[in-house]
Each structure stands twice: as structure tokens, then as C-alpha cells.
């Protein structure tokens, strides 16, 4: 059982139909277009990519908020057809905007109670006990000070703690964290990341961590998946990827991320020209080829690159590694 992947995604597609006047078909937005990966129990994986690359759609599809257009998701070996309550209680969700993620008209107690009520979890006394338990776990102590508060009375960091508490209140096995710290101040960011890490280790959770900010990744996850225009272009362990990026897009991305260094002010960066393609009409072949300086004429612009493994455990979808 333990060697079975926690979640396994095979050839996943999520296309949204675009209509005019509400009925004339215009085309499909291919937000997720053929994605494969496995995540093991207790493993934290980062999906990194620019906004609009489909990473949030992927997260929502994993969460069961969207029905996949094509492809399968297996959770602990079980294929998910219709996403029942059972599955919902196995997956926790942490969002980007902590204030928006909390219903403003509910107090902390009610917010934490809701998932349990919806999933008919435990008795009344058990629920109360669980609320206290999770609040202590996310360090919102003393619990009594927080339990009656409404979201607007809490600071951003505290709000995000409530969100984390809610995501684990049903004892899930997988956490999906979509940019959990990007709206927080730098000083709080680290605190929340450390809390997430502690929670993950304490419960041996699988984590899907979605971000556009590569610099936080190394503090948190084991593997990085790089996504570009609805496809995964590179998968590798964190260190390997940072020190040996293979895909031209990954390289550009890593180059573009600054560290706080006064030298930066005197350097120009090499940035690929243009913008990511529209997902309504993605370019043929490799989707990065129009911006790629290493593209192979006649190949990259024609055929979709398959996944290569030039270094063990380091996968890349790029013709350069054929």
C-alpha cells in the first residue's frame, strides 16, 4: 500500500468551452493539456509557472472543483469518477488570498465547523474538540481569544492560519496550496511557510504547492514541476532543478528571479521575448518555440516534444535532449 502513489494523474486535460451569445461555439481554452505526474504519501511537490499557464486550473481539477475533460486521476489507486464526499475530505485546500478565503460573516469557530458539518464528521463534542485541536496546531493560541473572532478582526498571517486550520480539520492526506503566501508580507511569509512544513511533517501529508515564486520553493518541497502553457515541461528534484535547469524556459525563469543583491542594478537580464501563447490557439509543436533561442527549425515548431530523462529522475520535454 505504501509504495502506491498518493495521487496519480494520467494524461489530464481540462478544456473550457468559449461561447458567444451563450450558445455559439468559439473554441476551447486549453487550460490543462495533457499532464502526467505522481505524488507520493508525505511528498511535497511544487508546480511553478507564470499566471495563466494553467497551474491553478490543475489545482482545481485535482481538488475536484472541475471535472476533467479527458484523462484520469487516481487517489491511492482508486480512480476518481464522480468526486464524492469521501474524496473531498481527503484533500485540503489553501488559497492565495486569506481574507477572501474566509466567509466574512462567519466567526472562526463556524468556519472550522463548516467542513465537519458538511461531511457529517463526528459528534458535536468531537467537533468542538477538533476545532480546539487544529487551532492549537496552527498556533492560534490561546484558542479562546480567536474562536469567536470574525476574519476582519485578524491580521493577514492569522487569517492564513485559520485557512490552514480549516484545510486540515478533516484529517486529509493531500493538501493543495495555491500561492499560499504570495499575498502576505515578507516578514509573515516565512512564518506561514514554516507552519505549513510543520503541518505537513506532522501528518505525513502530500502537498501540491503552486507558486510563481521559485525562491520560496527550496524551503518547502522536494520536487518541482515546471508548467508552461498548460503543459509540464520539466520535473526534477529541487536542488537538481535549481542547479541544473534543462528546459530553456526553466533556465529563463531561474535567470529572471533576483536574489537581493546590489549587483543586480548593474546587470541586464536575458529574457525571452514575447508573451506566453494564448491557450485558445496554442502554437504547434513545442509551445515555447516562438520564444526559444535554441529552437531546432523544422522540429520544435512541428512536433510536440515527448518527455526525456537525460539525468536520472530529471524529466524534461524538450527536443534538445532527444
Amino acid at each position, binding site marked *: 500500500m505504501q509504495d502506491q502513489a498518493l495521487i496519480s494523474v494520467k494524461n489530464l486535460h481540462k478544456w473550457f468551452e*468559449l*461561447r*458567444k*451569445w451563450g450558445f455559439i461555439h*468559439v473554441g476551447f481554452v486549453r487550460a490543462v493539456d495533457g499532464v502526467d505526474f505522481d505524488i507520493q504519501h508525505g511528498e511535497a511537490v511544487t508546480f511553478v509557472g507564470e499566471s495563466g499557464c494553467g497551474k491553478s486550473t490543475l489545482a482545481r481539477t485535482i481538488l475536484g472543483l472541475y471535472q476533467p475533460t479527458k484523462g484520469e486521476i487516481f487517489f491511492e489507486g482508486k480512480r476518481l469518477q464522480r468526486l464524492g464526499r469521501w474524496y473531498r475530505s481527503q484533500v485540503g485546500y489553501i488559497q492565495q488570498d486569506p481574507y477572501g478565503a474566509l466567509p466574512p460573516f462567519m466567526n472562526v469557530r463556524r468556519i472550522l465547523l463548516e467542513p465537519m458539518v458538511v461531511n457529517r464528521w463526528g459528534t458535536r463534542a468531537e467537533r468542538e474538540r477538533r476545532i480546539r485541536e487544529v487551532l492549537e496546531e496552527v498556533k492560534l493560541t490561546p484558542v479562546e481569544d480567536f474562536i469567536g473572532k470574525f476574519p476582519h478582526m485578524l491580521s493577514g498571517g492569522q487569517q492564513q492560519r485559520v485557512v490552514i486550520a480549516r484545510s486540515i480539520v478533516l484529517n486529509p492526506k493531500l493538501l493543495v496550496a495555491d500561492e499560499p503566501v504570495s499575498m502576505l508580507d515578507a516578514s509573515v511569509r516565512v512564518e506561514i511557510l514554516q507552519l505549513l512544513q510543520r503541518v505537513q511533517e506532522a501528518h505525513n501529508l502530500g502537498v501540491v504547492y503552486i507558486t510563481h515564486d521559485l525562491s520560496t520553493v527550496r524551503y518547502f518541497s522536494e520536487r518541482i514541476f515546471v508548467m508552461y502553457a498548460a503543459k509540464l515541461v520539466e520535473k526534477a528534484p529541487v536542488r537538481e532543478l535549481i542547479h541544473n535547469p534543462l528546459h530553456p524556459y526553466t533556465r529563463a525563469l531561474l535567470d529572471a528571479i533576483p536574489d537581493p543583491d546590489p549587483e543586480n542594478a548593474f546587470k541586464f537580464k536575458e529574457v525571452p521575448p514575447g508573451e506566453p501563447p494564448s491557450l485558445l490557439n496554442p502554437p504547434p509543436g513545442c509551445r515555447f518555440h516562438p520564444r526559444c533561442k535554441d529552437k531546432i527549425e523544422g522540429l520544435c515548431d512541428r512536433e510536440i516534444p515527448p518527455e526525456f530523462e537525460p539525468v536520472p529522475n530529471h524529466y524534461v520535454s524538450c527536443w534538445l535532449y532527444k
Partner: protein
Amino acid sequence: MARKGLQSLIRLARYTFMRAVAIFFALVVGIFLTIVIANMGGYVDKIKKAQVEESISMSVFTNPAYKNLTTEEKRELIDKLVALELERLGLDKPFIRLDRNFLRSRAFRYLIDALTLNFGFAEHIHSTSGSKRVWIIIKERLPYSVLLFTSANLIVFFTSIYVALVLSRRYGSIWDRLSVSLAPLSTAPPWFYGVILILIFAASLRLLPFGGFVSIPPPKSPFAYALSVILHMILPLSAWFISGIFASVYSWRTFFLIYSSEDYVEMARAKGVPGRELERRYILRPTLPPIITSLALMLISAWMGAIITESVFKWPGLGTLYMEAINSFDTPVIVGLTMIYAYLLGITVFVLDFVYALVDPRIKVGGGSAT
């Protein structure tokens, strides 16, 4: 450039056409529903049938010509006459049927009549030209209503937007605070202020006429005639103005204040765009679509409010006609008027939809919401 202009013109035309179709559809359904509601889903037919039966049996039983008929024979005769009369009135057909016989139901015939402005003949009321055709009676009164309420609404609308802009520039000044505290004055509808104004200016001070369109007998010279009309218009217009202006100023002022803290307004201010230009290009222009929507809603409620205001002022428009029809129980006129109101509302919605499309580039250029 020219191609782009043509394209946006085509888009505009297509949009207008789609809206016209949608509103026509809504109009047909709306009028049909009005017919059904007005007839209480056929209940009015039952009343009419009962009336026909009663009057015919009364006349048969009291008519000396049928004195020597037996009761049986009288019954038969009555049934025959009733059937004839019902057929003549079209009451023999079902009021509404929701099957393939729908097209033969009375409701459908009413609908066709209503759509072709064929409202039948009035029972008591007639037009000044002596016609009893409901459409002609209504047509005669329509301009009076349109004259009064279009001008009233436009005055309120433009004054309030202008004043609101000035106030939003002077946020926190005495005038601004005054406008906030006066806003509740608009709670009362125009007819209410009409009553009060008549009390003050007509009854008490005897300065202005109580109501009507022109003094009786109408003055001969065109100048005196116009003057008399204007004198008669002062009170209704003021009533409308007082009732509308305070809330309107308040809400537009608040609206402009909200929109003047938009990022692009601040940016324009930083750019050094002078005050008036800023208001015109950065506050007024982007908010035109919601402003137009609210003008539409205002006009729609105005058409309704007009009924009572007119009857308070005895203004010879549709509202007073309504009143007359109610008092003389003139069913065809009432139903016809209701239909006309549906048309007025439909036309209002359509015209403003069109203007909306003109001012919102998202419709003109395309894009906007795809889903």
C-alpha cells in the same frame, strides 16, 4: 482604421439587432402575461358570460312578446340567444389553452390584437374627434404625457448630474452636507408633492392653476395659449422635480465620489489633467453605461408614476385617461392603456440599450465577457 470602424459598426448593428429581437420577445411575452393577468386567467370572461346570460334572461322574461311561451321554451330561447351573443363576442372560445389549440384561444387573439394596436372600441369614453376606437383615444393623449414626463425627467436627470459633479468636487462643503441631509425629501413620490404644491400655490396663494393643460376656455392668441400651457406645466414639473432631485443628486454625488477614487482618475490627476477635463473624460465618460441604465430605470418608473401625477393635476395625458376609464369602468380603454405602457417600457429599454452600446467600447469593439 476604416476597416476597424466598419467592423465596429457591424458589431454594433449585430448587437442592436440581437437586443431588438430579445426585447421584442420580451414584449410579446410581457403583453401576453399582461393579458392573462388582466383577464385573471379567464376569470373576467366568466364574469362577462354571466353578465350576458343575466341580461338576456332578464330581457326574455320581461319582454311581453314572449309572454305566452312556457318556461321550457323560454329557457331554450335564452340558451339560443346566449350562444349567439357569446359567439358574437367571441366568448364561446376558450380563454386560454396550452395545447395545439392555443392559436384559437381568446388570449392569443387578444395578443394579436394588442400587437397590431387593435384594442377595439371604448365603451363610454371617446376622443375629441368623436372616435370610440381605443387606439385613437390613446394616440390623442399620448403626446401630452410624453411632453410632460420626458421634459420633467430630462430636467431632473441633467440637473442632478451637473449638481452632483459640482458637489463631488466640493466634498465636505456645506452644500455637500446639505445635499446629504436633504436626500430623504425624495421619499415622497411626485403626486404627493403635487398635492402639497396645489395646496400652497393654487388653493392658498391662488398664483397658479389647480390643473389641466390650458385654461378654459383656451386663449385665442398663440402666445397667450403657450403662456397658459406653461403656467399649467409649472406645478406638475415642480412636483416631479422636487420629488426626484434630492435623491438623484445624493446618489449621483455618492456615485461620482466612489468613481473618483478609481486608480485611473488618480492617475489622471497626477498627470495634471485639469479639473473639468478630468470630470468629463475620467469620471463621467467611463461611468456613462451605469448612468444610462439608471436613466432607463428612472424613465420606466416615471411612466408608472405619471399615471397618478397626471390624475392629481388633471393633465390630459394617459394617466388622466386611466382615471377616467376607471371611473366609467371602461374595460377596453384600461386594457389598451396597459398594453401601451408595456410598449412604452419596451421602447425605453430598447433605446437605452442602444445608447448603452454606443458608449461602451466593450460592446462596440467586441471582447467583453466571453462566457
